[in-house]
């Protein structure tokens, strides 16, 4: 029996995998189908079996957005899968494609220039803030707190404007390339970014007052959906959800990529493991992301512009392409990119996306297509939490737990 785990009508075993009811469960359990058309995020279904209003069994039925990314990744060459994989989490676009790009870079043995690394990290952090704010907005809807939805969605637009200025698209940036990035920052970007950072810092204090410290919200989140450290490790929960349970695991520390080794930031960890801690981790992460954006922008402003693609590729650029790179900061692709070949081998690329660690296993047989792309996203690994965390809670705690796990079905279903 675990201490501090609020469970109605029974207790959980040591790890929390199994609910032991205190009384015999009645024969007539209610079976409630939640989704796929429901007020929350929508594109998934949870089948819960209820004894009274206590969840006895939960069965996540996912796959409503399974769009066959792994199969299509095998037939589209090496560059084209980047926009394809981006569709898994379009508000976290740079983060979700980074691991694939890193894996291909490992196979090809190319290293992007430092400026490109900083640019990619900058966009990744902008995306991370966007993803967390989107999570807050949806969480607000779940809890019936529509102010939070409006605020988070409104403030997310600030960071979308930033990303749009950098890449030319609101959400689907298709920004990183193996060995580089696609656009350099426009001249007015550093000022915009600084204003956005200052604004968001002020705003987070107000979020605390209206949402996080709001007694109504706190009483719905505190002690609800507790995932202990052992359970998180057993289920393989990732990202902010694991960090809320006291696991200090972040790919940016474990296997630093891009410009992260040179940036100064912290990885916030909470020990409580409940829904409130999971929410607070995201707030703290936004603060760290703001710090990273400041540093990256300062670096990009201070250092002279250089080509943002790999040296080998830049060496092959015709004069027109070089001129465009200098004047517009736009990296052109070369026709060879459409049919490029990658040396034989197996590589794992991983990155810390907004919702946690995403892993791409890329296998090449030396041809024009990847032989196998295996994608395990953060939401896919978190999906199992529904099955083991929900039982023992009241049905009204389901939205709070669902929202605090920040589960995004398209990312999970691939």
């Amino acid at each position, binding site marked *: 029996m675990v201490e501090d785990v609020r469970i109605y009508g029974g207790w959980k075993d040591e790890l929390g995998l199994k609910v032991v009811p205190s009384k015999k469960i009645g024969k007539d359990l209610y079976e409630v189908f939640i989704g796929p058309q429901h007020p929350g995020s929508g594109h998934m279904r949870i089948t819960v079996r209820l004894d009274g209003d206590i969840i006895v069994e939960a069965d996540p039925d996912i796959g409503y957005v399974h769009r066959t990314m792994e199969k299509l990744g095998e037939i589209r060459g090496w560059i084209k899968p980047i926009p394809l994989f981006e569709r898994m989490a379009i508000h976290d676009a740079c983060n979700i494609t980074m691991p694939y790009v890193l894996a291909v870079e490992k196979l090809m043995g190319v290293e992007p220039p430092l400026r490109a690394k900083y640019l990619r990290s900058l966009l990744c952090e902008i995306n991370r803030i966007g993803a967390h704010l989107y999570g807050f907005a949806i969480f607000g809807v779940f809890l019936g707190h529509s102010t939070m939805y409006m605020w988070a969605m*409104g403030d997310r637009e600030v960071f979308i404007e930033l990303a749009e200025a950098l890449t*030319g*698209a609101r959400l689907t940036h298709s920004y990183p390339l193996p060995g580089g990035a696609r656009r350099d920052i426009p001249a007015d970007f550093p000022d915009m970014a600084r204003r956005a950072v200052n604004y968001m810092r002020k705003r987070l204090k107000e979020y*605390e007052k209206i949402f996080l*410290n709001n007694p109504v919200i706190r009483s719905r989140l505190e002690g609800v959906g507790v995932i202990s450290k052992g359970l998180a490790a057993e289920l393989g929960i990732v990202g902010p959800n694991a960090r809320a349970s006291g696991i*200090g695991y972040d790919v940016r520390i474990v296997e630093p990529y891009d410009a992260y080794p040179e940036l100064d930031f912290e990885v916030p960890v909470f020990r409580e493991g409940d829904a409130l801690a999971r929410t607070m981790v995201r707030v703290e992460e936004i603060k760290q992301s703001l710090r990273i954006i400041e540093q990256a922008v300062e670096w990009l402003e201070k250092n002279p512009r250089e080509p943002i693609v790999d040296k080998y590729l830049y060496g092959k650029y015709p004069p027109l392409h070089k001129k465009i790179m200098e004047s517009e900061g736009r990296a052109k692709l*070369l026709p060879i990119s459409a049919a490029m070949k990658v040396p034989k081998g197996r590589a794992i690329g991983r990155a810390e996306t907004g919702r946690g660690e995403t892993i791409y296993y890329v296998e090449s047989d030396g041809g024009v297509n990847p032989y196998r792309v295996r994608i395990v996203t953060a939401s896919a690994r978190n999906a199992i939490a529904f099955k083991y965390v929900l039982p023992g809670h009241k049905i009204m705690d389901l939205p709070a737990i669902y929202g605090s796990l920040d589960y995004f079905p398209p990312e999970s279903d691939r």
Partner: protein
Amino acid sequence: MPPKVAVKPLPKRGGLLAGVSDNLAALMIGIKYFLNPKRFSIYYPKEYPELRKGYRGFIILNKQKCISCAACARICPSAAMKMIRVPVPHPKEPEKTVMKQFPVINYQRCIFCGYCVDICPTEALYHVNYHDIVYENLAEMFWDLDTFQKEPEYPTAEEGIPVRLMIHEEYGLLKVPAREKQG
């Protein structure tokens, strides 16, 4: 400086009167924004946002620059861009015609990733900076070679005035007119 893990405590609730003071704080924020609202809603279609120059909107072909290399069609991730063969006058003997291939685009599939624009060796393709055009049937969305060379009609521009959203330290986003009023 290497990144590090920092264990943080949850924010404390304020003392004995937590329910009262936290509720009051939330209410005060509400009142503050009721009295001093920060609105940036765009009253579409009377106003529309004018997007930045580098925005990846509809893709247009400049036929004169096209060298028929088909790189754009090959890089297109969703196979929206296709090559068609059309007769063009022979460069040296004007009475003869030769078959040359040009790209056409299917906006039913285009995902506006901009790879075709970036791969084009002669900059024959370019983006326009608007994106809000809708269609009532699918056939219109397949652009033939003639349509592909013209920038599409932009009904929003005729109906509304352009605005711009500026990032502001105090307001987050601030709506300002994109152009000076004439006269």
